């Protein structure tokens, strides 16, 4: 089965990709996802960002499941 994830881009990451959300298939973990992302949007290499899987930030490579929501989060600047 080919898994499908829902990608969300915020802040500067949304500016760089030109998108707020995207569907992505054929990857199995966050490391692969990151490689694909940079392939598609080289501009992402110029910024720092964290990755959240289902609203939790993941620091290490994480297995992705079908219908997971993955968010690309540049450094926060609320308050």
């Amino acid at each position, binding site marked *: 089965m080919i898994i499908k994830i829902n990608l*969300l881009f*915020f*802040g*500067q990451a949304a*500016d760089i990709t030109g998108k707020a959300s995207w569907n992505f298939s054929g990857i199995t973990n966050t490391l692969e996802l990151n490689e694909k992302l940079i392939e598609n949007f080289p501009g992402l290499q110029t910024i720092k960002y964290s990755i*959240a899987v289902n*609203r939790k930030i993941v620091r290490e490579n994480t297995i992705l499941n079908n219908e997971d929501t993955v*968010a690309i*989060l*540049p*450094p*926060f*600047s*609320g*308050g």
Partner: protein
Amino acid sequence: MIDKKKHKVFVDGAIGPAFIADSIAKHSTKKNIGAHSIFLGQVRNDIINEKEVEAIEYTAYSEMAEEIFHEIREAAFTKYSLTCMHIYHSIGRVNAGEISLFVFTSSVHRKDAIQACNEIVERIKNEVPVWGKEIFSGETYQWKTNS
């Protein structure tokens, strides 16, 4: 007499002084409160590369932000002896000079309210997925970074 009811954190646009006054006034019926600590974040008109910040436009990953606000809230109630806690954060455009963050803690003795308020502000700045876009006069912008 602990008020732990959840309320919406995000409010559209700036947080007005009248809203803050109203929040304070509501606590006069809670007569076991001895101390309130309040933090207000105000948008600065920083000059960056000779351009002045006119406003900040806030966006958030709301679903995740609400979860983190909830965590911050629960942790503060566990760690400190608080009577009430309220957090409000602006979404959308807030002009320089206007208020975008309002953290309000209340306790019987002052140390709890003060320490909780400080800790909540630090956690919000570091952990909540909110982004501020600094809008310059003339429609250009840059993404804010927290110090």
